[in-house]
Structures are given as structure tokens and as C-alpha cells.
């Protein structure tokens, strides 16, 4: 279907088989966000889950980092086509947070300091599929990469892994978040190249 680009051979750098289609391997850690990097002092940091009934569960930094944490080694894939393999994080599994939360809603809107939002089905966050991460490579997560804490959902494009995350709002219906409202895909599966609305 596609037209051939005259004289284009491609560079075809060695591309490991475990990369989703269209991705290339990044050796650095690119930064992408819609505005300046928020810097949140730990004594002002909170994470809040608001359920569909309006019930709130809040953790401050001390309470949050006292929760059982896991070391996670995963591949990450950005919609702008870079991937990093075998990145190592430390964080709290979303399952752990939901041990304390009663909700029948199927969707989550993740909110961030700075106003960013992104939507995710709850089932994509549970069963060991997602974390709130606060260390990268053994170091506290740098503000550029979403520190003090960011969502980590490795099986979706990385814009779903909201940086500077400060809470979840439970929703019965799926609603678009920030990039989703700007034409990005509602779900964002890198293996199916769900970049934009309609992909």
C-alpha cells in the first residue's frame, strides 16, 4: 500500500526482536513533557485516590514510602519511537494501594502536579502491571523524569506513565486525558502501534 521512497534504504541499526514495531533503541533517556518540570518538595507531596463515591484515600511521602515496595525491571516504549530495555525502578504496586480502596469503577484518570492527566483502564493497573515509582536505577527519581514519583505502566506507551503523579480519580466511563484529548489514542498499546486516535 505504501509508496516506495526513491533512494531510501534506511539505516537499519541492529534492532532487538523484543522491540515493538517502529521503535528504536535509545541509549540516553529522552525527556518529553508539555511544560516546565515541576519541583515538588517531599514534605508537600501527597498521593490521593478519589473513588466514584467521592471517598478519598491520601498518602503523604512518609506513609507512601513506608508501603511495601518492589524492584521492577521492564522495557519502556515512548510514542515518539524510542524504547529502553531493561530499565530498573523501585516503587509501590498499584495493587498495594487498592488493598485499601473500595471501587467498582473500571477507569482511572491519573492526575499530576502541573495539571497533566491521562486515562487508563483499572485492569491495566492491577495484577502487577503498574506501579508508582520513586527510584530509577537505584537513585531517587529525578524531577525531569517525573520525580518525586511517577506512574509506571510499561505495557502502554510511556505518555500513560504520568510524571509527577499526585492522584487517581475513579471513573465509570472512559474519558480522554491530556494527550488523548489532543488526538492521541485512548489506550496506547505499543505492540499495536496505537499512537493516535483511530489507529
Amino acid at each position: 500500500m505504501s509508496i516506495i521512497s526513491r533512494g531510501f534504504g534506511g539505516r537499519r541499526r541492529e534492532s532487538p526482536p523484543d522491540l515493538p514495531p517502529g521503535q528504536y533503541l535509545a541509549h540516553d533517556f529522552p525527556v518529553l513533557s508539555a511544560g516546565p518540570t515541576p519541583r515538588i518538595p517531599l514534605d508537600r507531596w501527597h498521593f490521593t485516590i478519589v473513588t466514584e463515591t467521592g471517598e478519598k484515600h491520601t498518602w503523604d511521602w512518609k506513609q507512601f514510602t513506608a508501603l511495601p515496595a518492589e524492584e521492577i525491571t521492564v522495557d519502556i516504549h515512548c510514542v515518539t519511537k524510542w524504547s529502553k530495555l531493561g530499565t530498573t525502578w523501585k516503587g509501590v504496586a498499584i495493587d498495594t494501594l487498592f488493598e485499601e480502596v473500595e471501587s467498582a469503577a473500571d477507569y482511572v484518570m491519573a492526575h499530576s502536579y502541573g495539571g497533566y492527566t491521562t486515562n487508563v483502564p483499572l485492569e491495566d493497573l492491577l495484577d502487577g502491571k503498574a506501579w508508582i515509582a520513586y527510584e530509577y536505577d537505584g537513585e531517587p527519581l529525578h524531577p525531569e523524569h517525573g520525580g518525586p514519583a511517577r506512574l509506571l505502566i510499561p505495557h502502554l506507551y510511556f505518555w500513560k506513565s504520568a510524571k509527577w503523579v499526585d492522584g487517581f480519580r475513579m471513573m465509570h466511563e472512559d474519558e480522554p486525558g491530556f494527550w488523548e484529548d489532543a488526538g492521541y489514542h485512548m489506550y496506547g498499546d505499543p505492540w499495536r502501534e496505537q499512537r493516535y486516535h483511530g489507529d
Partner: protein
Amino acid sequence: MARAAVSRRLTWRVATVVAARWETPSARTLVLDIPEWPGHLAGQHLDIRLTAEDGYQAQRSYSIASAWPGDGPVEISVQRLEDGEVSPYLTDVVEPGDQIEVRGPVGGWFVWRDTATAPVLLLAGGSGVVPLMAMIRARSLAGGRQPFRLIYSVRTPEDALYAEELRRRGREDSGLDVRFVWTRKAPDDWPHPPKRIDVATVNTYGWPPDFQPDCFVCGPTTFVETAADMLVALGHDPKRIRTERFGGA
């Protein structure tokens, strides 16, 4: 953050390169005729897909450089990365008459609408000037009077994209100020040694925060991080600072 717009299925279209011109020895503007182009806002980008004879494909994003007069072609400006896969093809191989696949426009956040009235501060690093140029051109096309200031950080005079047009518009488009910051080599008649963009520059040639300007910062990641941090430090409302990072250091 305000809600953005544009939710629409994006389809691949076959664009024809109708003209090409060098902006600098390493950056080239391609003029694309795209059938049924739906129009775009200043700051949006498009995706390009290239296909080799054996089916191998590569895709990259390029900001749209041109304003949209309601018809006519769409321009992008590509900076060659010597070891890149796509950019050297677009700068050195593609010729007028060739066809490439594009889809877009993409992006509804890093955009400037000509109906906006707030003062605008544009901070560009290197080829990050491209979407900001589209904003300057869109303002001009609409006959806009919004106060605009561009601070453009670039290595040497030979590396400056659109240098002549920017100087001309700086003189002719009323309410538009253009300030270059040379980081490696300044022109002979420049009164200062080359330097990186600093707080004093942003303070002197930008808008004071109490004017509540909309700020657009675009360039390589380190440039964007530094420049956006300076704006915040100077007291600009983070909600009015929009950034776009082109990857790279």
C-alpha cells in the same frame, strides 16, 4: 492545563515535494503539496513515513514551518543529523517531484491561535525555531498586532534558520522583536562574545511575568529544560509555559 482540541482520525496521505531550498548548509525546507490537507494551527507537526524497496519503514515527526493561508502547500524544515536515518534523506536525497507519505496535523497543545491576544514569548534553540516561525508567520498572515518576542539561541550565524526573514520581519512586522543568542560564534559586528542563553537575556529580551505572556519553548531537551526553568525562576506561571522537545542533547 487547558484542554486541547482536535480529535480526528489521521490518515496517511501521499504528499508531493514541489520545491526545496537550503536554509543553512545543513537545514533544508521542503515545500509539500498535500491533497485535501485539512489545515493546521501554528505549532502543530506532521509525521513522515518513508518506505524502502523491501518494505522497511521509518517514521519521524516534523514541525510545520508555514502558516496556513487556507490553501497552498505546507512547509517543513529539516536539520540534517549526520548519523540520522531520516533527516539526511530529507535534506540530501529528496528532490522536487518525489512523493512521501505524511499524516497530520498532529498536536493541539503546543499551538498558537491567531485569535489569542496575550503577549507571546518564543524561546528557540537550534531547529526548535521551526514551530515558532510558524507562529510568527501565522501572526503576520492574520495581520495580528499581538506583542511577540523571539529569543533564538543558535551556534553560529551560518546555523540560523530563516535568519533573513526574521531580520526583515523584526523590522517590518510591528510589535515583533527578534533577539539572537550566538552560542559558539557571533557575527563580526556583534557587541558581545558568544554565550549560552541566561537569565539576564530572558529577563532583558523577554516579557516581564506580570504581562502574563504565553511562553513557547522549543529545542533540544537540555535547552528546553534550562529555558523553561529560567522562566519559572523569573516568576512566569508554569501554566503559561508550553514546551516541545526535539530529542537530542
